[in-house]
């Protein structure tokens, strides 16, 4: 197999049952390809964090296999964990430490020799250089988030896990963070992120996995997913408002806006027949004139909500 093909993380039949009896993962199979940005989407309690925690060594698995670069996460934990950087969801920092010390600590913890130049580079990339001598309790929420990323990057990992990286981060900072993650990807780091924000997955991911109730519901190239499940909406602005949809158009399943000046038609953009030609002909025949028309692709969010709803 070429290195491009061999998954950097290979999870098969992974299960986790907590002592409480809660089954967080029920036989998860998942491959992550080297160099990609993989987004794991799912509602609260779906098993996202448990999945990440098992790969990173925070939680013991109940069953199944997890290989990172072909190595078992338990048998070869040293090699495996040296490759991985983790940015957890919670902002947990040792409040009395300084930025510089805590990042240097992280590097040492992962067995890397001290390298002030590299630490400086990481801090500069994350706009934390000016704060290097500040105590962590003096940092804002956004800075703390960036600090957690700096800690995770301090040992030059090849794989980075970001658990809800932009939760509670303002819009501008979110953009910066995305920019940074793209930069990391360009440098060859594989990135796995979990998120609630569909926008985030849509914006960044190469592939998307949806997890719900401990099962992977779907894994797909983002573009493919959008294409496959993308429903389109056609909206017609009517020249003159109508009171109700004429009988002759009943077969098209149209929706009329409350003001009576807009007709909406939902269709599958990938279907053999979208029915648009027929619809427009019938509208013309019914004597309805329209002043404008627009189409809209459904967002990942809608796709996601539909998927999760189907899973129930």
């Amino acid at each position, binding site marked *: 197999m070429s290195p491009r093909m061999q998954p950097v993380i290979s999870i098969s039949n992974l299960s986790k049952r907590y002592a409480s009896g809660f089954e967080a993962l029920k036989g998860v199979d998942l491959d992550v390809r080297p160099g990609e940005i993989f987004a794991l989407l799912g509602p609260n309690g779906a098993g996202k964090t448990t999945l990440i925690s098992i790969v990173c*060594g925070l*939680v013991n698995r109940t069953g199944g296999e997890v290989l990172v670069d072909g190595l078992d996460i338990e048998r070869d934990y040293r090699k*495996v964990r040296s490759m991985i950087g983790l940015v957890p969801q919670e902002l*947990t*920092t040792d409040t009395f430490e300084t930025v510089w010390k805590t990042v240097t600590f992280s590097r*040492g*913890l992962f067995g890397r020799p001290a390298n002030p130049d590299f630490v400086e580079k990481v801090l500069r990339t994350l706009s934390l250089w000016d704060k290097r001598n500040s105590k962590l309790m003096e940092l804002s929420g956004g800075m703390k988030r960036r600090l957690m990323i700096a800690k995770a990057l301090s040992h030059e990992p090849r794989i980075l896990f970001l658990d809800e990286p932009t939760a509670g981060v303002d819009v501008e900072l979110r953009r910066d963070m995305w920019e940074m993650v793209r930069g990391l990807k360009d440098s060859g780091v594989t990135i796995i992120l979990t998120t609630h924000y569909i926008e985030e997955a849509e914006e960044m991911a190469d592939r998307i996995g949806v997890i719900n109730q401990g099962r992977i519901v779907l894994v797909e190239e983002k573009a493919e997913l959008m294409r496959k499940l993308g429903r389109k909406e056609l909206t017609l602005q009517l020249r003159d408002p109508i009171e109700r949809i004429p009988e002759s158009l009943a077969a098209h399943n149209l929706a009329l806006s409350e003001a009576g000046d807009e007709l909406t038609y939902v269709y599958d953009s990938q279907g053999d027949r979208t029915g648009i030609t027929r619809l427009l002909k019938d509208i013309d025949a019914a004597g309805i004139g329209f002043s404008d028309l627009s189409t809209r692709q459904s967002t990942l969010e809608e796709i996601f909500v539909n998927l999760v709803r189907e899973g129930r």
Partner: protein
Amino acid sequence: MNHRAIWAIYRQEMARAFRTLLQSIVSPVISTSLYFVVFGAAIGSRIEEIDGVSYGSFIVPGLIMLSLLTHSISNASFGIYFPRFTGTIYEILSAPVSYVEIVLAYVGAAATKSIILGLIILATAGLFVPLQIEHPVWMLLFLVLTAATFSLFGFIIGIWADGFEKLQLVPLLIITPLTFLGGSFYSIDMLPPAWRTVTLFNPVVYLVSGFRWSFFGASDVGMGVSLAMTVVFLALCMAVVAWMFRTGYRLRP
């Protein structure tokens, strides 16, 4: 062996002590001085010599042991409990470090602090009473062994505790009484025979006794027994830690 990780944790733990230098060093010096004023000068002057040693000097080893035990436990238990409490433990668990390395770093740092503390108290005591140390090597050995053993014990408490209350519970309810009743301030020979027998079930008696032997060459129980008891307790703690790590107890669910 990931020696860089051990060093990183060890240094971080030591730095924590230096941040609270006042609490770490000044407070034991003050409390030791108070003990000497009360027990050594005020009360001690009315107590006759024990085994040919003035009462003021007699209580020095017990006093050091008292601080050594309580500080070893509180240092080590806090050291591992705090990252669990704040959540920063995630980084340790996700790092390429073995359990042995984690123990070496945390327990090593806690024991180091206790040993430094013990030596500070010893030096402070020297200001108040004449000191003689007959077997300095044994004295250091007992100091190190006790600090290591009870730091390990504290580490166990720090993993077991699921609240700050529990963290205080064991030192407060078990260790302090055992130390006070373990012959820190008296020779167990001074007790009535029945109580003397009861006291022999108190492990602290052996620690204090052995330590005192290294100072004065005389003790309540044999030095060999003291050493053996300490080693047994150390082995017991190691077994518990090994079990905790094997099962992921409270660290890796």
